[in-house]
């Protein structure tokens, strides 16, 4: 077996979403050499998949894409895609060693022109994860139209190895001989920006997700509302009907001890209100009803945004959903407790959106050898001193940015990444002084 390649950087950033990317960019601008390890095929994490952001209704892609291209082009930043930090060991102050495993893409990124001829030639159609399973994609594919890098990849698990993509490729950049690569990365500091997972609504069977096709997640609606949407317009997945009476179920998987997540996800109220406003724009005849426990519109401009949605005609019902049943025509009956009237009621909608919560993505803590990375009660990364230095973890030299610390919105993630890069810089400076 060949020796692992040894690479040296000032900072190892784990995660290439908006927080990891922002932290990497800040550090790179201070002339530190940064390695970003990203598990997916593109930068931008969850944000790049969103339609618009609250409360400004700016296009999410328009904010994310210039940022990710700046990260990609920065001379001090190296990015490894399809890669994971398997082992991170603190050998001493300013001395970390990480084992990074990279899966093959089967495409040489530098030679790929994103002509999409491989995509056209590929006969295989499988579920498109980026479009949240609403449509298919090819096994030779560009992850999504605004992916960075905009380069093809081969989904080897679903590939029939017919060779059509290779024959169609004008630059000869497809290479099925690529194998897994392992690196030893030496770094002086580590930034963990591994983000969050969305709550899986299959864990609440009484809402019928998976069984009733017109019950979708908020991320699926987010894709339907984006310019790079999966359908020709907003359609319900059960039968392609244009919906005209849409319900939102807030706190799906948040503030719910029965599913093991008692905390508030901080973003669901606002993204649901945002989607309500966007739906009013896309489907002017549609009714939108939001079933909520409490509306938490706590940020700058949030309450005004909430009031604005009411003025636009979004209906708000303080109610807890008991269960959802499907009618023969695909419409859904929501049985709920009207909290204000103290009555159990039923309402019919033709599509239901489950506003799924933010869950921790804590696997990275398993990678730490020796001193373990401490998590909080909900699986997010524990912050040693949340008020005085919010990016510090229990390991000196390991900092945390964004939703890896807990649920937060995009502006807070960017702020958190700023804090993480500042504290990392301060730690790195101590090595010199």
């Amino acid at each position, binding site marked *: 077996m060949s020796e692992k390649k040894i690479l040296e950087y000032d900072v190892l950033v784990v995660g290439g979403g908006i927080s990891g990317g922002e932290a990497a960019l800040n550090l790179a601008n201070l002339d530190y050499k940064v390695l970003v390890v990203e598990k997916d095929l593109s930068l931008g994490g969850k944000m790049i998949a969103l339609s618009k952001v609250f409360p400004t209704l700016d296009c999410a892609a328009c904010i994310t894409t210039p940022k990710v291209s700046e990260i990609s082009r920065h001379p001090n930043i190296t990015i490894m895609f399809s890669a994971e930090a398997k082992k991170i060991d603190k050998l001493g102050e300013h001395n970390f060693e990480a084992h990074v495993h990279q899966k093959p893409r089967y495409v040489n990124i530098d030679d790929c022109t994103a002509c999409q001829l491989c995509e*056209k030639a590929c*006969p*295989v*159609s*499988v579920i498109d994860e980026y479009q949240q399973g*609403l*449509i*298919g*994609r*090819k096994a030779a594919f560009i992850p999504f139209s605004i992916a960075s890098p905009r380069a093809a990849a081969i989904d080897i*698990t*679903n*590939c*029939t*190895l*017919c*060779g059509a*993509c*290779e*024959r169609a*490729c004008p630059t*000869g950049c*497809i*290479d*099925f*001989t690529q194998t897994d690569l392992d690196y030893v990365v030496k770094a002086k500091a580590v930034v963990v920006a591994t983000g969050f997972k969305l709550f899986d609504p299959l864990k609440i069977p009484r809402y019928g997700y998976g069984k009733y*096709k017109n019950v979708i997640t908020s991320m699926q609606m987010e894709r339907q509302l984006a310019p790079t949407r*999966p*359908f*020709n*317009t907003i*359609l319900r*997945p*059960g*039968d*392609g*009907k*244009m919906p005209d009476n849409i319900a939102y179920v807030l706190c799906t998987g948040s503030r719910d001890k029965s599913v093991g997540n008692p905390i508030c996800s901080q973003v669901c109220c606002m993204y649901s209100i945002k989607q309500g406003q966007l739906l009013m724009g896309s489907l002017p*005849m549609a009714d939108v009803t939001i079933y909520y426990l409490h509306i938490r519109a706590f940020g700058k401009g949030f309450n005004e945004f909430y009031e604005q949605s009411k003025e636009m005609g979004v209906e708000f019902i303080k109610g807890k959903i008991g269960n959802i049943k499907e009618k023969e025509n*695909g419409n859904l009956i929501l049985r709920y407790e009207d909290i204000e009237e103290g009555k159990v009621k039923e309402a019919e909608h033709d599509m239901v959106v489950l506003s799924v919560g933010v869950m921790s993505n804590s696997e990275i803590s398993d990678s730490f050898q020796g001193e373990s990375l401490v998590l909080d009660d909900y699986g997010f990364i524990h912050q040693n001193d949340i008020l005085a230095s919010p990016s510090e973890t229990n390991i000196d030299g390991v900092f945390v940015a964004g939703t890896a610390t807990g649920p937060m919105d995009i502006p807070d993630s960017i702020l958190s990444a700023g804090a993480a890069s500042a504290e990392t810089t301060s730690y790195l400076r101590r090595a010199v002084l």
Partner: protein
Amino acid sequence: MEVEKGKTAKYRKEKNPVAKEVMENLKNFTKTKKRLMDALKEGDKTVPQLAEALSIPADEVLYQVMSLLKYGFVETGDIDDMDEYFYYKIKDNGKD
């Protein structure tokens, strides 16, 4: 071993046989695609009309028709009189 550029899939196939499910998935997609395209050749149809004509669940029809739209085989037509369902048709009348 030096593998000829442009023929690396064949090389991999010799070492790693393709799983049965993967071939099965390809077969199913090709078959469903043909059935949907044949039905649309007879005239523009909505998702429920295609589901009824082919006895395929409507959610499956939508998924496949939208995939075919993405792959460039199908395009969106007018909406029905009730403003509920769109008609879908063969792209450019089937011309390449």
